[in-house]
């Protein structure tokens, strides 16, 4: 416990300093509304992609339905805060979205994980997300295909920042525990894992549900910050663009996901000056990174203060 206090405090310091830095830059006028928008989008993408990385990179299950869970969170917030437009209403809508996503992820997971894996699972999850989207498209309460607008803006960049920190800490602590090891064992070798008494379906489901819940959080933030949502926002392309972040950063590296979400977010914003050439340059950048770094920007490398401190003490010893 005491030995770990150092690392916990280091992480806490990073989070507080990051917050203070953004705050000062906004007060100083360096970050305008345009850049603030970019930062919020990056934050939401980080929550989405770290959740998907848990499913793909750590439990080894290929899911293409992440946008479906995002839609659940987004619509939960949009509907609830229209009637109850206070901060408390937003927080409650956040939890409602998470609970709904958990239940639906559990149903989809139970139906698919027992029999399917790999490409087949990807198609099944893609289908499940399309079902969610089509249900939303045809309901009255969700505003049909035109979507919902004038959603009260009840979250700002600090809300997003805090939720990025919370989801990341939850996911990382989960991965670095008994449960996380069981999930990685399922990814490595299902037969060996079951011979060790690990219930493979149960642990795949756990990762899938947790990933779905984080996507719902991102959806809630998306709806409340952008104030407009439509079913077309949560289609296959959204699932794919989350997948791109995960693959680009490195499947199985949360640090990589952070880096990729940031790089792509900045790239996207900078390229807006290039007009129609934007998507071409974006696509070329993706192809180049995949050719020269096929395992993603960081592979499965993970930043840790423990290793950093260990390196410093080694250097010190070498000098003295």
């Amino acid at each position, binding site marked *: 416990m005491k030995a770990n206090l150092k690392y916990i405090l280091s992480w806490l310091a990073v989070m507080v300093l990051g917050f203070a830095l953004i705050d000062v830059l906004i007060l100083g006028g360096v970050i305008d509304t345009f850049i603030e928008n970019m930062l919020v989008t990056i934050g939401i993408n980080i929550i989405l992609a770290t959740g998907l990385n848990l499913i793909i990179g750590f439990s080894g299950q290929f899911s293409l339905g992440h946008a479906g869970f995002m839609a659940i969170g987004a619509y939960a917030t949009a509907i609830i805060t229209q009637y109850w437009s206070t901060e408390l209403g937003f927080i409650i809508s956040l939890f409602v979205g998470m609970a709904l996503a958990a239940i639906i992820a559990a149903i989809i997971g139970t139906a698919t994980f027992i029999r399917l894996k790999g490409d087949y699972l990807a198609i099944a999850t893609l289908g499940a997300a399309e079902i969610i989207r089509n249900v939303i498209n045809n309901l009255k309460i969700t505003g049909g295909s035109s979507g919902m607008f004038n959603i009260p803006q009840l979250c700002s960049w600090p809300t997003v920042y805090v939720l990025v920190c919370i989801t990341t800490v939850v996911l990382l602590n989960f991965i670095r525990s008994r449960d996380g090891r069981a999930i990685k064992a399922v990814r490595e070798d299902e037969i060996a894992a*079951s011979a060790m008494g690990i219930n493979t379906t149960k642990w795949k489901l756990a990762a899938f549900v947790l990933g779905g819940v984080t996507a719902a959080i991102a959806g809630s933030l998306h709806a409340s910050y952008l104030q407009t949502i439509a079913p077309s926002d949560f289609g296959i392309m959204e699932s794919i663009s989350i997948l791109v972040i995960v693959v680009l950063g490195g499947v199985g590296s949360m640090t990589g996901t952070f880096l990729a979400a940031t790089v792509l977010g900045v790239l996207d914003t900078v390229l807006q000056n290039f007009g129609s050439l934007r998507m071409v340059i974006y696509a070329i950048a993706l192809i180049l990174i995949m050719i020269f770094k096929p395992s993603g920007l960081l592979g499965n490398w993970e930043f840790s203060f423990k290793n950093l401190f260990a390196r410093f003490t080694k250097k010190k010893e070498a000098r003295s």
Partner: protein
Amino acid sequence: MHLLQVDHVVRKFGGLTAVNDVSLHLDDQELVALIGPNGAGKTTLFNLLTGMIPVTSGKIVLNKNSQSYDLTKESATKIADLGLSRTFQNIRLFKDLTVMDNVLTAMTNKYHEGFMTAILRLPNFYQTECEMRVAAEKLLAIFNLTANANTLAKNLPYGTQRRLEIVRALATRPQILFLDEPAAGMNPEETADLTQLIKYIQTEFKITVLLIEHDMSLVMNLAQRIYVLDQGQILATGTPEEIKVNPKVIEAYLGEGDE
């Protein structure tokens, strides 16, 4: 009553009968070997006993702590939980995990951390984690793997990977350990070490061991009883001395001496 009772087990793959009416039993703290030519159905029998594949017909019963468990239709997970652990002929380690994590993973069901305890990193979490590590280090020390604790499993030499598989199987705290060709690919010296090691863990952990092996020096030195399997059927059973001179076994598997 025997610890593990296998009655008339049959397994068919389409038209092929891989295991044909096999009955055998294992007693508490016994060291038994299963030998036979390639394709005799030895590994298939292991897969049946550990629930990896379902039996076509027959019955498998575990008698443990004066209770009877019917394993015939149980899942591999449940069977592993009941104390039957195994290694694999074609090594199946968690390749991208460290040696330590491979062992810790096998302890998953023996320790409970709880989701919230792990997420919030409550003091309990560090305590459980510490207990698991101490237990894992003890096992690694027995198998001389302490120095490799932080190596990725895929980077270990072949013989060491085989040893790690045994450690991992032991980490589930089994009552019966199934070893599928533990000495495959080892040189005579390594095989001799392994023979000592298997004897040691069997007495130290007070477990029953059933092993498949082609290396007769290991089998004859270790086994208290031997089952000979040929074309899916039990050809002979007995002590090493009896098996060595059994004419049917010599014809089907052991072969005549060169002299």
